[in-house]
């Protein structure tokens, strides 16, 4: 089981007017992901999804809290144990360009982690790399190319294939479909479903594409300003409880409905929506956008509470 216990990460930024700007990127997140589960994480841009992903795989250290991977603490792991843990959990970065060395070929990029974690023969490595490249819809000739020779979507798929070749028990995917056309998206989603069944992988799937999340994930967590506000089974999504979850769902419906209507609405509605605001609020951070908010909400932070099996909500009014 993959567990996050009360994770906190605050970034300190020098600002131009105020001396120090504190950004609570991840603010007390606890979650547990069962083996074999497909855990979706949604939330607006800048709410802390990538930061949470980096904390979960140990690329960054939390200010407080800890991550448990199959009962062993990520921050305490050393030597052999650390290697074992690293092999178990992999992150596919949101920005494949930053994560890949531009001076070496795709083959070298893909071979490196295999060398690190396994003792395959060169031939086996090649077969494995080739088969995963084909699975993500690329031609094996890309092995000889450099990253800058690939298109955005091709690069994204190389990054995905690289993590998949390791068949990690837990795979954190940060916006893995972002710049792919629908047909390739569908191919990748089918591949993920297939691999999960064959190798019993566990995914944490970060995406702003609610359609894809609904298709792939059995559990969906909704994040707002560094906090998880609702965790619910996919099939309950239409009955989501938290006002913010409902706002996200509405924005999807708006897009699915009449195009022109939707655009008009977007134009008119424009700016009353949630945005970046890291002001200290003593209570529920959604209060200023919430139509159910009252004085109690603005003064007290609601904690994530279980309302049913597998369904948790952080809201005073909806419990």
């Amino acid at each position, binding site marked *: 089981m993959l567990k996050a216990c009360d994770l906190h990460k605050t970034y300190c930024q020098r600002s131009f007017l105020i001396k120090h700007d504190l950004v609570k990127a991840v603010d007390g997140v606890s979650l547990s992901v069962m083996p074999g589960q497909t855990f979706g994480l949604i939330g607006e841009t800048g709410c802390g999804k990538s930061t949470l992903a980096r904390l979960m795989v140990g690329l960054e250290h939390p200010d407080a809290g800890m991550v448990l991977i199959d009962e062993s603490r990520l921050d305490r792991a050393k030597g052999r144990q650390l290697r074992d843990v690293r092999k178990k959990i992999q992150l596919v970065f949101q920005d494949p360009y930053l994560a890949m060395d531009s001076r070496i070929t795709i083959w070298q990029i893909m071979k490196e982690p295999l060398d690190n974690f396994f003792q395959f023969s060169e031939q086996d490595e090649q077969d494995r790399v080739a088969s995963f490249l084909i699975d993500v819809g690329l031609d094996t000739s890309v092995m000889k190319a450099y990253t800058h020779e690939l298109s955005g979507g091709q690069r994204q798929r190389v990054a995905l294939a690289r993590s998949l070749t390791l068949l990690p028990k837990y795979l954190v995917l940060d916006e893995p479909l972002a710049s792919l056309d629908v047909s390739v998206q569908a191919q990748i989603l089918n591949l993920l479903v297939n691999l999960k069944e064959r190798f019993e992988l566990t995914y944490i799937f970060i995406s*702003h594409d609610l359609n894809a999340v609904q298709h792939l994930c059995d559990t969906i967590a909704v994040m707002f300003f560094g906090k998880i506000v609702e965790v619910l089974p996919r099939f309950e999504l239409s009955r989501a409880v938290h006002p913010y979850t409902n706002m996200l769902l509405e924005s999807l419906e708006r897009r699915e409905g009449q195009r022109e209507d939707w655009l008009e609405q*977007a134009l008119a509605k424009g700016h009353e929506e949630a945005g*970046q605001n890291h002001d200290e609020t003593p209570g529920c951070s959604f209060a200023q956008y919430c139509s159910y908010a009252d004085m109690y909400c603005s003064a007290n932070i609601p904690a994530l509470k279980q309302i049913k099996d597998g369904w948790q909500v952080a809201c005073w009014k909806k419990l």
Partner: protein
Amino acid sequence: MVLALSKQQEPANDIRLEALLSISGLTVCFPTPRGLCRAVRDLDLQLASGTILALVGESGSGKSVTGKAILGLVEPPGYFASGEIAVAGESVLSKTPENLRLWRGVKAGIIFQDPASSFDQVFTIGAQMVEALTAHGVDVGSARRETLKWLDGVGFRDPERIISSYPFELSGGMRQRAYIAMVMSLRPSLIIADEPTTALDMLAQSRLLALLQQMRQTTSCSIILITHDLGLAAGIADEVLVMYAGQAVEHGEARNVLSQPAHPYTRALIGSVNWNNPRGGLATIPGQPPVLSDLPPGCAFAPRCSEAVALCKQEEPPDRLQTGAICRCHRPFI
């Protein structure tokens, strides 16, 4: 955050009549050890002022290369093999590199696909945005005000924080919006937006679309929106151009192309937008796109096309139908 865009450069009347962007016979090649990769082949395109064109197509079909080529940007050893590009009557390819640098930004701006690599990592967002404006003769004070205004315009609640942030201190979607603000602050007559919404959630997407529309209305700029999101194309574009293996395979009014596609590839692409496939998995277009350095003879889509006949594998289809519609196919749906 309603933006009052002043009409900074009133477009001259004659430019309104003729095409703002005119591309003919554009071919861009990249020599690679695996052979010559022809990323864009024989592309023709006329775009009027104030038009929004959506450029769609499979990953690797040449959309980004086309977008960059319009600004004269092709990374060596890549080169322009043939063709002409003119923006507002000015030939792009005959400009000197120095002229091109000055011209870029004001006349035509590009929002690159990779929000991470677009910014210089060692300067703050604010420094780079102000620099972009002052390089074009705006004084520092107004540049700073403009910068704040545009950051607000793309939906930041705290532009002050963004201005003093380094690129790595922002999330993917924040970086993307900051870059969009930087490009738009120069009010170019032609905006090329390469997948500008990939890191944006639904609300930020709708806000960006609204902003693009507003921009088009007030400055009558043209926008080329490169996107994989057909819904987005349907929502905002006047025209749609579909690319396959480096070629424009279909081009026309958005409504026509998206609701009655004539080209089998466009049809297949639209067919894969179905989240409730009764057969379980999601529909994909079978087969793989061709390797650009090793194209098959005849129609490039033939190996995957359900309509293909023997002729398709022998002879390349002409670039338009007898009706004049732009569609590269021997057996279109009409």
